[in-house]
């Protein structure tokens, strides 16, 4: 890496008034042709480019992004990372990502502020208890750390939770994954962008894809606002806009795009040192390093690309938050926003080849894609480079909607959908 970040570079730049920091990645004009093009400069897309260059030595590649790096869902999520999914295929996929997270800051020479503060999932009724216990057992059989906590243990782990038996949905217990936690989402995009750029990847921002050109069953390139760019391999990682791009290529996807909302409070002193999620009442909360409560709300029930979301969804979430955490009753919320998430019928992603040669899709992450960023990039890079899926993403092919071999993760997905 050209300018390695270290304590010495920090001191050196501090002494010169922080005026001589080099830019973290170039701002190139697109070449006429690339060996591969990634559409979408979010975390997943940048990670894909990084691993294509690093592990598969494909360095004549570009990432094209409609807006700016990390301005989409990468910068809009609630930064939760965990791998406690039910099925073997998902456990393999998400834990692969978690293992990469554990060494990511060192690998990228960029502090992604990965913090293994634990993620606790609460149970509020008998069926929750059964499902979560089953999931705990499944996780442990797959080598993923998971423990069941009873109500007292939940209270001990996170004392501000209201565990009174008198609330509408009392806390009957919960599961805890200690290796889970959070990371700084912008840093993930920036770290991968810087890493990919250092390996020769062109990151082209403000470049919207207007068409995907194919010659029969083979892709030829993309039509963009910066002109036509030729490539025989195109990987689409466009989250909420995946269907729009699929439409350009003349194929269909089993996706619906919906707004998912999140909000943050005013910053306060440390009060919650873990991540607590509750699917049943739909409230999840953690605290950022700045001190804001980071709260995840739900999706709207209808297709929309507006990046706003309905007010009633936020209201429902805050009602649940207030009942579970009466201590937050006088907190003021500072900001609310929405991101467009592409949801698959089985709540599992698609990392797959398509019926068109050289066209690959990485989509359908729905409400929980951030946690998988490094693993998704690694496996998608493998799929593009070899024109074959890695064994860890083989189950997440597009053909599963024809064969019926679905990976139903509605129970373990962050937001019920």
């Amino acid at each position, binding site marked *: 890496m050209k300018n390695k970040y270290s304590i010495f570079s920090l001191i050196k730049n501090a002494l010169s008034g922080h005026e001589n920091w080099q830019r973290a990645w170039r701002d190139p004009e697109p070449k006429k042709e690339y060996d591969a093009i990634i559409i979408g400069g979010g975390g997943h897309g940048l990670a894909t480019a990084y691993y294509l260059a690093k592990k598969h030595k494909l360095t004549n590649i570009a990432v094209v992004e409609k807006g700016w790096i990390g301005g989409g869902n990468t910068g809009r999520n609630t930064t939760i990372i965990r791998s406690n999914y039910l099925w073997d295929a998902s456990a393999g996929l998400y834990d692969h990502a978690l293992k990469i997270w554990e060494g990511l800051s060192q690998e990228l020479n960029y502090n992604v502020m990965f913090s293994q503060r634990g993620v606790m999932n609460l149970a509020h009724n008998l069926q929750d208890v059964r499902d979560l216990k089953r999931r705990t057992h499944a996780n442990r059989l797959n080598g993923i750390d998971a423990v069941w906590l009873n109500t007292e243990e939940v209270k001990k782990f996170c004392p501000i939770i209201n565990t009174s038996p008198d609330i509408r949905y009392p806390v009957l217990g919960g599961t805890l994954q200690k290796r889970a936690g959070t990371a700084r989402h912008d840093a993930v995009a920036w770290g991968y962008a810087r890493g990919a750029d250092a390996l020769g990847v062109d990151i082209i921002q403000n470049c919207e894809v207007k068409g995907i050109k194919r010659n029969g069953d083979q892709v030829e390139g993309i039509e963009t606002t910066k002109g036509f760019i030729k490539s025989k391999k195109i990987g689409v990682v466009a989250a909420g806009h995946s*269907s729009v791009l699929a439409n350009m290529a003349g194929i269909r996807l089993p996706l619906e795009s919906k707004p998912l909302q999140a909000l943050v409070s005013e910053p306060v002193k440390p009060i919650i040192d873990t991540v607590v999620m509750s699917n049943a009442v739909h409230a999840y909360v953690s605290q950022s390093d700045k001190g804001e409560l980071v709260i995840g709300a739900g999706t709207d029930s209808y297709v929309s690309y507006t990046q706003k979301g309905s007010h009633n969804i936020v209201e429902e979430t805050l009602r649940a938050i207030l009942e579970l955490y009466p201590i937050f009753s006088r907190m003021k919320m500072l900001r609310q926003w929405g991101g467009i998430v592409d949801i698959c019928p089985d709540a599992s992603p698609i990392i797959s080849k398509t019926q068109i040669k050289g066209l690959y899709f990485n989509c359908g992450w729905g409400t929980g894609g951030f946690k998988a960023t490094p693993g998704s990039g690694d496996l998608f890079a493998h799929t593009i480079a070899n024109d074959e899926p890695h064994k860890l993403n083989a189950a997440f092919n597009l053909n599963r909607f024809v064969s019926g071999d679905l990976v139903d993760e509605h129970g373990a997905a962050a937001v019920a959908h």
Partner: protein
Amino acid sequence: MFIINCPYCGERDQTEFSCGGEAHIERPKQPTELSDDQWAEYLFMRKNIKGVQFERWNHAHGCRKWFNMVRDTSNDKIQAVYKMGEKPPIK
């Protein structure tokens, strides 16, 4: 969040309604003769349009009747509402 003009009840808040997804997906006439690909098309594949989309809605907390709606998903503006069985007023 928006106001929906229910063809039976008039203007009501969107929270009273539930969305039933893409409209005019025809149930297969000969289910036994469908291939797996055709089943996948019918069951799972969606247009998911950014722009003008035809969809089904139900006035769940009102008259509980189903109806169709034409809505621009890029700005949530409703362009038309029409009853089940009627032809869409916009192409």
